[in-house]
């Protein structure tokens, strides 16, 4: 039985047109024309308990709007949401007790107070029993090494430290679902890795269902089992990451350093996608031609210094899906 079911979910915003010029802007306050923006457009999916899902899309694709509807902040224009048997915007309070939310861009901690004070306040807000609170706090501060800065004011923490605290704050009340809106934004490589590792562990050890939105496809590749791609409010892909690579990642890239700058390069079954001095990038479809065949062709005609084959990065695949749509 799914923990989250979303059916034909849509969210339309009216955007009022403002006109320039004094009289025009005055008249536009009287008769307002508007455009309808379909931020989320007929989206359906369902999640099982314990899943770890990446929800990705370009800026303005509708990621945050979806998350806001799932958390009960926004009311859908149409469609149906069921989260643990609740309708989030109608049963907002019951729903919030059972979910944790992290906004990467905005901390939910008390800015000028020591970290531990925020945790204590959340304990009261969520009415967390003392022993559970203690147990969870110990668990998370060990896992995320919070001990050294528990009594430091939040404003003096580094971004990475603050994110670790925000993660703890969202999980103290033992939520069944954790929503993360761009949890790795602005973090350095080490901090990002720490967050990813943590999410994997929380998911595995505590059976928390995790949904994260992100721009960083490495997050998805390293953390998620499943990927939902949204573009212009519509879901354009929903499935496993390996399946995505299987389906769209057939194009491999051969990067070749030539011994000299040949003026004209002719090869069958291969696209020359880029050239930079003596280095060339060759794209080929692994279903029509094998890597060894390409190399045989290449060595037969040109003198080569070095070559590498790169597998398609998920980023590349997603970029291609955005550009061309799903085929």
């Amino acid at each position, binding site marked *: 039985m799914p923990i989250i079911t979303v059916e034909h979910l849509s*969210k339309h*915003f*009216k955007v009022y047109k403002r006109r320039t010029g004094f009289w025009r802007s005055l008249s536009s306050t009287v008769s307002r024309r508007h455009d309808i923006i379909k*931020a989320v457009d007929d989206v359906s999916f369902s999640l099982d308990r314990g899943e770890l899902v990446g929800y990705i899309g370009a800026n303005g694709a509708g990621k945050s*709007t979806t998350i*806001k509807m799932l*958390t*009960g*902040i*926004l*009311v859908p*224009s149409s469609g149906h949401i069921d989260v643990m048997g609740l309708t989030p*915007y109608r049963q*907002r*309070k*019951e729903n*919030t*007790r059972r*979910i944790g*939310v992290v*906004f990467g861009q*905005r901390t*939910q901690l*008390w*800015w*000028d*107070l020591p970290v531990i*004070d925020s945790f204590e*306040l959340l304990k*009261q*807000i*969520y*009415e967390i029993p003392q022993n559970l609170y203690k147990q969870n706090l110990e668990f998370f501060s060990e896992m995320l090494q919070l001990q050294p800065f528990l009594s430091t*004011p939040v404003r003096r923490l580094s971004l990475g430290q603050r994110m670790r605290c925000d993660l703890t704050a969202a999980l103290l009340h033992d939520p069944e679902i954790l929503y993360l809106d761009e949890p790795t934004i602005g973090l350095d490589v080490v901090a990002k890795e720490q967050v990813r590792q943590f999410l994997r562990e929380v998911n595995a050890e505590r059976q928390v269902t995790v949904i994260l939105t992100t721009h960083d496809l490495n997050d998805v590749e390293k953390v998620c089992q499943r990927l939902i791609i949204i573009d212009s409010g519509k879901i354009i892909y929903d499935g496993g990451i390996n399946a995505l690579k299987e389906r769209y990642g057939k194009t491999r890239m051969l990067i070749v350093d030539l011994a000299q700058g040949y003026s004209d390069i002719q090869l069958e079954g291969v696209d020359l996608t880029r050239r930079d001095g003596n280095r060339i990038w060759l794209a080929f479809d692994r279903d029509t031609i094998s890597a060894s065949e390409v190399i045989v062709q290449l060595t037969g005609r040109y003198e080569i210094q070095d070559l590498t084959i790169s597998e398609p990065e998920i980023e590349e695949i997603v970029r291609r899906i955005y550009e061309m749509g799903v085929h």
Partner: protein
Amino acid sequence: MVRRYFKLYCLLAGAYVRSRLQYRLSFGLMCFGIVISEVCLLGLLGALLVKFRTVNGWTWAEVVFLYGLGNLAYSFMRILGSQLDDFDRYIIRGELDGVLIRPVPPLFYILASRIELIHVSRALTSVAIFVVAFHLTEIRWTLEVALFTLTTIVSGTLIMFTLMLISATVALWTTKSGKLTDLLISATKEATAFPVSIYPLAVRLLLTFILPVAFVTYYPAQQLLQKGEFLGMPESFQFAAPVVALIMLCVSYLFWCSGLRRYHSTGS
């Protein structure tokens, strides 16, 4: 239930106060400034009254009493609604989302999250002013008078608070409401300091039926000072402040709820 919310209010407000105390110097200066400005205002009022003797048949002591009463309600309102004078930042910075993910009523959470101590220092000043003003008048101190005064202060605080809540709520439609709230705050403060009888009829009607600040000081003062000056309004208005406060509470809360529904359906 009540205990939980009382505790939570204290904790959240306490967290805010502790945050502010991180910046002690600026806090101290603000408090000092407030006290000075209150004393200056009162001095100005005194100077004017010494020159003109009476305002529309109100003696110097009576006007100071009116001012003191209004100021008391005003400063309690500012404590209670510390968060409302720049409520629009909740919309502009998207902080309302952070409120809506907590298992607590949003208005409660917002109000509890901030208690401005400078308003507490203002309230202490106005208590002092009120005590002095009370002695200047010829009001006899009885239990009935004490209860009536207390009810008046509570009702007055609530009436002013609801006006502020309504103007802050406008931000849920327009994104910004700071200027409107500022305007309303200073206008209501001025309006409670003088007898409503000095204004033209239209303003009197406005202050009675639309922005009912006349119920904060003017009408209750009729009872306390035995003025019998009703300007053609029913005499029962002198006792009506709690009823007006209750009506305003309902109206402003419904308005708040509809604003929140709108936020729910439009987003930031």
